[in-house]
């Protein structure tokens, strides 16, 4: 027990891998669903009628004022109440991540759309394009390029946040690590391993964001 014993880590790998799968699932659904819902919210806020725009703004400001843990708790208890039957921790976690991330993504997207200069709108509309066509064909493709580095950075944060699902009994990578560490009494080895994995994954993500940033300014 005195010396480091790394042997327990390989033995626990299949268990940890299951946890990693859940983390990656939450990341993928949170990113894709969050971006889609975030786009809708951003468009409502920018171009919607007054009342829906105000609701969208309240949604964004409200959710960004609440910690993710609380959102996870709420959906775990609220979704079954709303639909009248238990849904299980995973679906409620996925919904919570999409709804939470959408608040952040919508602000990134809104800033991205705002970064496209107004002459581009005028040029497209002067050629007879409708506002929808201008947005889809001219503004959003440019906005997306401008946002890409920040979207990747947000994904890195999201990946780290997936560890919070332990509060509703789900076993993500971090939770799996923690369980394995307690079982074998090898806390240092397992937590060092987990830190290494997070470091590699998140550094790769950050490096990708930097690379995208450089390509943009090149």
């Amino acid at each position, binding site marked *: 027990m005195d010396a480091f014993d790394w042997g327990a880590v390989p033995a626990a790998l299949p268990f940890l891998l299951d946890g990693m799968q859940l983390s990656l699932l939450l990341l993928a659904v949170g990113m894709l669903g969050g971006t889609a819902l975030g786009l809708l919210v951003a468009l409502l806020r920018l171009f919607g009628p007054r009342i829906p725009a105000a609701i969208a703004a309240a949604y964004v400001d409200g959710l960004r004022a609440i910690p993710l843990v609380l959102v996870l708790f709420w959906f775990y208890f609220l979704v079954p109440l709303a639909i009248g039957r238990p849904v299980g921790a995973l679906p409620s976690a996925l919904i919570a991540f999409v709804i939470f991330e959408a608040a952040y993504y919508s602000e990134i997207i809104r800033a991205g759309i705002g970064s496209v200069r107004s002459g581009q709108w005028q040029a497209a509309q002067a*050629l007879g394009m409708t506002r929808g066509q201008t947005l889809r064909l001219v503004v959003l493709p440019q906005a997306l390029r401008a946002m890409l580095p920040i979207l990747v950075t947000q994904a890195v944060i999201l990946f780290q946040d997936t560890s919070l699902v332990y509060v509703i009994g789900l076993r993500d990578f971090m939770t799996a690590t923690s369980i394995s560490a307690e079982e074998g009494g090898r806390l240092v080895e397992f937590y060092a391993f987990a830190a290494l994995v997070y470091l590699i994954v998140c550094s790769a993500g950050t490096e990708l964001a930097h690379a995208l940033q450089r390509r943009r300014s090149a």
Partner: protein
Amino acid sequence: MNATVSVAVASSTEPVLAQAPLLRIDGVGKSYGTVQVLSGCTLDVQRGEVVVICGPSGSGKSTLIKCVNGLVPFNAGRILCDGVDVGLGRQVDLVRLRTRVGMVFQNFELYPHLSVLENLCLAPVHVLRRPRSEAAERAHQLLVRVGLPDKAGSLPGQLSGGQQQRVAIARALAMDPIALLFDEPTSALDPEMVGEVLDVMVELARDGMTMMVVTHEMGFARKVADRVVFMDAGRIVETGTADGFFSEPTTERARGFLSRILSH
């Protein structure tokens, strides 16, 4: 009986229609809050006419031509452009109007994420619903016309300012417009690139394109303008032939303006 027939004939013959101005700007005014940027602007533009609009900066020249295709809403007066009432036009009419009246901007405003060819094809394909192959073929013809046949695959950022502006002119021409509006097309260019853009515009004028051009290029105005309009403080102060305007401007303000821009 005879009278009825002759009236019917008179109202449908070519000469009568050809005389109706393509563009009628009638008493147009615009204000941002308490700031009056345009007041009482009245101007007719005939088919095939080239009208140059000049005046000091802030005089409302750009605002006026952006009113013509409805990019800038105005609060007073009326604009009839090819039969469309721009101010009261429904969105559908505005879209239809804009497909027929092209615009070239000071800062080119090419779509930076698309190749030159895609820049030229985007609106013909998505707005006019032309088949891609047809739009691409037309785009290649237009690139030849503006002297850039080998730039179809380039991105706008890889071109010089003069080349970008020539692509922007080709992009406007790709819609087969009946008129073109130019908003200071050479103001953002380095001096050595002004000529190549003006050459393309002179060609267009000689081919009979109806053009409204906001510019300070007086050489261009002398060469091709049928009329010169001088604006100051949101008003059309003077309208005349190019020769008349340059040799004998009638208003003090126009004389002052000309002496300032021609003295260096």
